[in-house]
């Protein structure tokens, strides 16, 4: 989408998504690629339950004067949750996430940390969203490899992978 380069515009674009139950996963604000008319291209990725809700979001955006220039859809994103236990911060959680996000059609969509007492191990819960079953499985086996290299205990769901 393209937004006016004035404060509050982005918020205006995001509001309908959460109002209709969407789950925003990433926002890319491409300020350096302003259009000739001075608008800022913004790429939004969000997840939403069904087509009817998507239509309601799009209608609401249009009503607010947000210009949607391109619409891509992927059906049936698959989500898995994994827990990691160990020295999560020391072993660079940022790097762990980057490695997963670098996989095609895979992104880390949620992360919660529970820090242990000083010197103790910590725990993290990670939600991985992928375009399909195959990609999710490959993300899980990648994470498994990263976890064993970083000596983290990885706990996945029964039946996953």
């Amino acid at each position, binding site marked *: 989408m393209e937004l006016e380069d004035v404060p509050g515009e982005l918020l205006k674009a995001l509001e309908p998504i959460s109002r209709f139950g969407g789950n925003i996963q990433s926002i890319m604000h491409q300020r350096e690629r302003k259009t000739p008319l001075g608008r800022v291209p913004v790429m939004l990725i969000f997840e939403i339950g069904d087509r009817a809700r998507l239509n309601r979001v799009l209608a609401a955006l249009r009503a607010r004067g947000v210009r949607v220039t391109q619409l891509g859809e992927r059906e049936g994103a698959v989500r898995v949750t994994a*827990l990691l*236990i160990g020295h999560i911060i020391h072993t660079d959680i940022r790097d762990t996430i980057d490695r997963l996000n670098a996989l095609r059609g895979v992104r880390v969509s949620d992360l*919660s940390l529970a820090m242990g007492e000083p010197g103790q*191990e910590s*725990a*993290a*819960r990670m939600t991985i969203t992928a375009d399909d079953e195959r990609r999710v499985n490959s993300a899980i086996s990648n994470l498994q490899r990263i976890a064993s290299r970083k000596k983290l205990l990885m*706990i996945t*769901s*029964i039946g996953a992978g």
Partner: protein
Amino acid sequence: MRIVLIGFGNLGRGLSRALVQKAGFLRRDHGLIPRVVAAVDEFGAVVDEKGLNLAGLLKTAEGKGTVALHRGAKRGRLALQVIEGIEADVVYELTPTNIETGEPGLTHIKRAMQAGRHVITSNKGPLVVAFRELDSLAKRCGVEFRYSASVGGAIPAVGLAKKLLAGNKIREIRGVLNGTTNYILTRMSTEGAPFEIVLREAQELGIAEKDPTLDIEGIDTACKITILANSLLGTNAGLKDVKVAGIARVRPEAIRLAQEAGQTIKLVGTAKRGSLEVGPKLVPLGHPLAVGGTLNAVTFELDLAREISITGFGAGPRETSSSLLGDLIDIHRTLGG
């Protein structure tokens, strides 16, 4: 039916109590008159071919700790002598588990089969070390072999799968098969208390052993998943084929994170053709495997029925006598009784 009991500890006694208590019921409803002709422990044996007075023997064993001090008992290591020398239909092998050699149970079972006795056991050792060998030895000797009590205590996992679900192909078996670790995980999740504290509590309550290593490291669960795979999936696996992780690193904070996402952490054994695994897993709250306390649970994934789960007590002499007695009645029926 003439019965020999090898091992007269928790389970030998639990079974004997059930036999005393249910004598009338077994005769009336099953046409079964069990007669225990010998009971053996590490220190001695009592034999009476007309049938021992179990109530009296229980009193001695509970009071003095061994059958060797019962009236008329012989002292010494007599298991093999009794197995081979005393005429019997069924030998119960109820001695302690040794997962490295399977002994003494392995030799007891082999000799019993070779002597033409049907065998019922609760002992995981021989089953983990030599399942195929024992299974084919039983066939060669023309005897029945049952081991319901070795996995899941009172839960009839093996019988359910082999008999009532016989029309299905089993795709996968998953189980919460260790009461000690399940108790620890449950207490960590309800109290938020750290592993070490909960373990100590479990030891004080007699739920965890003084050396809980086999439980905590997932090895006991690995034994049970090996037995289930060998007996129900037709594999020929040993302990070394199971990828094992225990629960020592599971922290209450991790369980809390799981709960915030509608899940909990259980130590789950998984068996499918080509992969045996034990480790902590996320289980949705409300799933049949999300059982609390010392409970056990097994889920079968099947081609026709899709999913069948059972839950129950995984240990305890009275509870487990349900499986031991069930195996006896099953053999009695198989033989046309």
